[in-house]
């Protein structure tokens, strides 16, 4: 009986995928909140719960500590902190979710940047008793730097401030005043108690003054489809398919993931950096030829003319091209112990192309406390964020990060250690 066991009607077509990241200072209740979301949406399995119950008892927690659900590594359990990004998964009938659970402390800025880089939405936790701290501002700043379109501020531990509306409003006002300086297109505030589950999955009767949705309700309904850029088609060639079989003797397909916009069969396209023009002969996938391809589909393009196209080339359309640049201005989050300094050389990886980059000038460093740019900095240390000008060994076809997160981002790689040492977001190019 090793067959596919008869015909299967397709399972219910699930809705879309929402990736969100969570940040909070230590003890703000981030683990409890995630545990609560998973638990109340019935994603915690009995054996996991039993494990948490036993561990809670052994540690003498006095209650079932849902925060334990998210402890991953031994070192983290021993020290009771989150060090690295952990990914969690849950689904409701409306949506499938991926949570990037990131540590909040400034010494883990790089982990937050990592976890938030792919997020559609950022959750920032604030302890109602403490109000808007320097850390909260840093989290909001990073979310805006990474151009996460939706920010949700959860004011947690409302139970410890008598569920007082005034406390919540004061925090929201403080936060708004700060956020006005940042680019955050969609900002939402929700008063919660992660411990008691208030306003996490269900709206709480203990805060009748709050008229907004619960956190889960908001996550299920926040509109993300229009966050994607459908106007500027881009596909970076990852791999050239040349089967060289009799059947496909002259076949050449350019395989890649659509990074922006919509391609249609017959479209006139430009291949960068060479600037050669041709038309799309066909858009192909394993499942057959497609009329159109759009973000984030992985497809294969066949072109009408035999051009010299290889990995790293960018396929786009004539009236909305990225900039072909040898010089970049970029915001960089530094991720290595050895600092970034002017004059240093790195490998830069941008879409599927790599080149060498030299740091021409460090324009400024962001003060982690005031979040203001400090000009004249001589280096970026581990977890620092700053603006630098890079010169490239060969041209890259780039967009501003604010226009396209996929074609506006890059990583820097240390050529001696091969480590990823920096994350870059292109501000301008020329």
């Amino acid at each position, binding site marked *: 009986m090793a067959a596919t*066991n008869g015909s299967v009607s397709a399972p219910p077509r699930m809705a879309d*995928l929402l990736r969100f990241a969570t940040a909070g200072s230590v003890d703000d209740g981030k683990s409890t909140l995630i545990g609560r979301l998973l638990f109340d949406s019935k994603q915690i399995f009995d054996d996991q719960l039993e494990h948490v119950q036993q561990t809670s008892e052994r540690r003498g927690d006095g209650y079932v500590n849902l925060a334990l659900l998210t402890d991953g590594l*031994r070192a983290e359990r021993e020290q009771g902190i989150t060090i690295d990004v*952990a990914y969690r998964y849950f689904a409701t009938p409306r949506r499938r979710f991926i949570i990037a659970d990131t540590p909040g402390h400034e010494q883990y800025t790089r982990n937050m940047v990592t976890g938030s880089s792919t997020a559609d939405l950022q959750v920032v936790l604030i302890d109602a008793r403490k109000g808007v701290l320097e850390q909260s501002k840093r989290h909001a700043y990073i979310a805006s730097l990474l151009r996460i379109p939706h920010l949700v501020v959860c004011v947690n531990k409302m139970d410890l401030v008598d569920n007082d509306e005034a406390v919540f409003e004061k925090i929201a006002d403080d936060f708004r005043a700060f956020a006005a300086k940042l680019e955050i297109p969609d900002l939402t505030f929700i008063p919660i108690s992660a411990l008691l589950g208030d306003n996490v999955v269900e709206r709480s009767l203990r805060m009748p003054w709050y008229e907004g949705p619960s956190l889960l309700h908001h996550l299920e309904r926040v509109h993300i489809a229009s966050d994607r850029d459908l106007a500027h088609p881009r596909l970076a060639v990852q791999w050239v398919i040349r089967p060289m079989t009799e059947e496909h003797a002259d076949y050449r397909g350019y*395989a890649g993931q659509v990074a922006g916009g919509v391609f249609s069969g017959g479209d006139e396209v430009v291949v960068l950096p060479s600037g050669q023009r041709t038309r799309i002969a066909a858009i192909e996938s394993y499942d057959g030829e497609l009329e159109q391809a759009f973000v984030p589909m992985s497809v294969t393009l066949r072109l009408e003319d035999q051009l010299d196209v290889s*990995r790293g080339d960018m396929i786009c359309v004539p009236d909305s091209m990225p900039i072909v640049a040898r010089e970049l201005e970029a915001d960089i989050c530094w991720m290595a112990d050895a600092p970034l300094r002017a004059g240093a050389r790195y490998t830069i990886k941008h879409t599927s192309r790599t080149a060498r980059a030299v740091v021409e000038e460090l324009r400024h460093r962001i003060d982690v406390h005031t979040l203001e740019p400090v000009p004249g900095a001589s280096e970026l240390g581990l977890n620092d964020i700053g603006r630098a000008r890079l010169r490239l060994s060969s041209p890259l076809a780039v967009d501003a990060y604010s226009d396209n997160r996929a074609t506006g981002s890059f990583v820097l790689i240390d050529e001696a250690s091969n480590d990823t040492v920096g994350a870059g977001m292109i501000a301008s190019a020329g």
Partner: protein
Amino acid sequence: MSAATYELSHLRTLESEAIHVMREVAAELERPVLLFSGGKDSIVLLRVAEKAFKPGRFPFPLLHVDTGHNFPETIEFRDRRIAELGERLIVASVQDSIDAGRVIEETGPRASRNRLQTTTLLDAITEHGFDAAFGGARRDEERARAKERVFSFRDDFGQWDPRSQRPELWNLYNGRIRKGEQVRVFPLSNWTELDVWQYIAEEGLEVPSIYFAHRRPVFARDGMLYAASPFVELIEGEEVFETSVRYRTVGDMSCTGAVESTADTLEAVVAEIAATRITERGETRADDRVTEASMEDRKREGYF
């Protein structure tokens, strides 16, 4: 896919991401290999590989670390699937490692070859000069995996160091390594068990028959049901009886638990997984129960 609104279902989004990962590895590493066990995750991985390079062949061979304690149904399926594809399968055998004195067989009623696989895998990687190995592991499976990168860098002993993982940003993967080092690559990192089953159903993929309910002689141990087989010694008091079971994972006969089930179609299996209250590894894998950190420890030693 819906052309009017340009929206992709979550399964197609995950598939697209996995294809992207495979193409990056093929382009950036010299000698990748795909670990194929005949289990559901590697079946999905294989389909993604076919998709990523069509109409070409995928540019890497397949490797199975065969413990010798597999279910015969899995091996039969494995060989048939490979023959259909016309691909080359390298079989690295734990029995050979034992015979060569590379590892020592555990003894006693709870003996398992699970841990021994690491040596066999690392030996095969060295012998063939592989620098990247695709695995079907998912982050929802286990707490250490939840923290592992898609490109999981391993030193020249195959060891994972969770404290010094490379940051992984956007969809930019850094596949640079030095000679002797390797990456384990997990294109299905963001899939859940339910996603895998839904994908198998959508794609109409064949899976080994033991994933469907069947009658089998089993015995109960530590709250799990194990297959009676030549590879396990019974402990006094344990009795073999026959019942209707299916498997959620296909590991070794000696350490993979069966679940009582009557789900004998893909639809029924998907429904059962959607409703289950127990995790895949909790219900079926004795190897993960040994200590709180057993998976982390095995990964540090070079495990998948």
